């Protein structure tokens, strides 16, 4: 996808956001050029989900600007695809997997109109990319956790957004699904999409991501993982939630996801 206008796909300037006057994140500034895969890391409560929700306008923004291709992001929300950390859905809701994926097409179809053959094709392609074509007509709640996650990812694909905001897309899914999802995200990145992923898997960030944003209520570091991951930045990001484990002569960084 070609760039529209400016240099950046997403630009966040001086963002302060949170509920009830107590900001959960403060002074957040960063900019992402198109076609990059960015990992957002930080301990639980660091504000990763808050950051995503603020970008999407799901929680109040107290200060700052969020720009998508140099224009206010909130005016072009259909251009942002969102995968929430926990889909708070009724699993017994009477919709099939293809119905759910079709929902990603709704902003493009527009108000009061029915999906056309073009939309059916887009849904089929999205399902094929997450390997769920065989389950197109399965009721959504009958899928396993990993399959459901792929179905919701397919909804984002069907939406065909410029920017993908994925909040811990691989937490709680099996290793095979994790690899499949990351491979798919790399494909998307290579086709020009901007992919922002909140994750706990630091080693995966080092291996696969272009940039990393270390977050702990504010931006601790932002840059290519090899530069941003230093002892001091990781320490500031994770505090005592971070453990450094000696494995032979390799030092492995481990984020303790379970402590709050």
């Amino acid at each position, binding site marked *: 996808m070609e760039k529209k206008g400016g240099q950046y796909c997403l630009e966040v300037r001086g963002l302060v956001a949170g509920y009830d006057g107590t900001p959960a994140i403060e002074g957040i500034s960063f900019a992402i050029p198109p076609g990059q895969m960015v990992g957002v890391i930080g301990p639980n409560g660091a504000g990763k989900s808050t950051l995503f929700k603020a970008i999407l306008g*799901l929680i109040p923004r107290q200060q700052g600007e969020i720009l998508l291709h140099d224009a206010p992001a909130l005016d072009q929300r259909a251009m942002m695809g969102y995968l929430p950390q926990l889909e708070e859905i009724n699993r017994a809701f009477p919709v099939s997997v293809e119905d759910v994926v079709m929902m990603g097409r709704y902003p493009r*179809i527009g*108000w009061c109109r029915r999906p056309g053959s073009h939309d059916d094709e887009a849904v089929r392609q999205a399902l094929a990319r997450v390997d769920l074509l065989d389950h197109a007509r399965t009721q959504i709640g009958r899928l396993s956790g990993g399959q459901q996650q792929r179905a919701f990812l397919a909804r984002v694909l069907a939406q065909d957004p410029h920017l993908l905001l994925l909040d811990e897309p691989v937490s709680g899914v099996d290793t095979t699904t994790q690899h499949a999802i990351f491979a798919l995200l790399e494909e998307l990145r290579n086709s020009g999409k901007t992919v922002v992923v909140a994750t706990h898997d630091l080693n995966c960030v080092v291996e696969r991501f272009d940039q990393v944003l270390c977050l702990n209520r504010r931006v601790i570091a932002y840059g290519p993982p090899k530069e941003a991951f230093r002892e001091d930045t990781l320490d500031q990001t994770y505090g005592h939630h971070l453990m450094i484990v000696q494995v032979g002569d390799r030092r492995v960084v481990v984020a303790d996801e379970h402590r709050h």
Partner: protein
Amino acid sequence: MIEFMVAPFEFGFMQRALVGGVLVAAICALVGTYVVLRGLAFVGDALAHAAFPGVVIAYLLKGNIYLGATVFAVATALGIGLVSRRGRVSYDTAIGIMFAGAFALGVLLMSTIQGYTVDLFGFLFGNVLGISRRDLLLAGLLGALVVLTVVLLYKELLLLSFDPTVAEAMGYPVQALNYLLLGLIALTIVISIQAVGIILVVALLVTPSATAYLLTERFFRMMLLGILLAVLAAVIGLYLSYYLNVASGAAIVLVSTCLFFLVLASRRLWIAAKSAPDPAK
């Protein structure tokens, strides 16, 4: 048998009751699909009770009871949204406060009328047999408005019901759509008051749709099946009302309730039979 089927409808009031009952039942089931899937049964019941003072005031002023009911039901729908949107009072508490208060106002006003009990009974429990040509026309117009809205906003209301967070993230005006849905529920209730009354309308709003929910895993089919079951209940209920000389609204509701338990029991038996070990082995 044919005589048995046709005889009731030789009367004009029974013909109107049939048209009115079927219309009301179908629209209730259409909107009821959303009520069941979003868990809005309590809201529906509250809106129905809140319409009561509107009905009484219209009755006292000799105005149109549909108009009175609409004003109060819609105002309450908006009020519930406003009270619960911010602050520490939870959604269901806000509803409890609003509807009991409004209902009490209705009862208070009603009690100022001499010999009020007969009319009160009519509003609370409805009487589809007493539906007039004019009532039918109004119910038809309001019903058409509800159906048109659901047809036009089918996609949007489906997404809102399934995943409001993602709907909002995509830029849909979720708050406005929620109010619209409450408004549709309010209108549906207004249409139904003459037929089944304020107390029983929630049954038509949830029972046929809940029955349909047991039978299918597709949204559109649930909607159609719910409408079918509601119409069936309305027709059987009317026959019962005619031949057994019992209250029409209550008869329709009870048939609907029986259908629900029938389907629930069959489903349980079917699931048990499917999972039971094969006796031949």
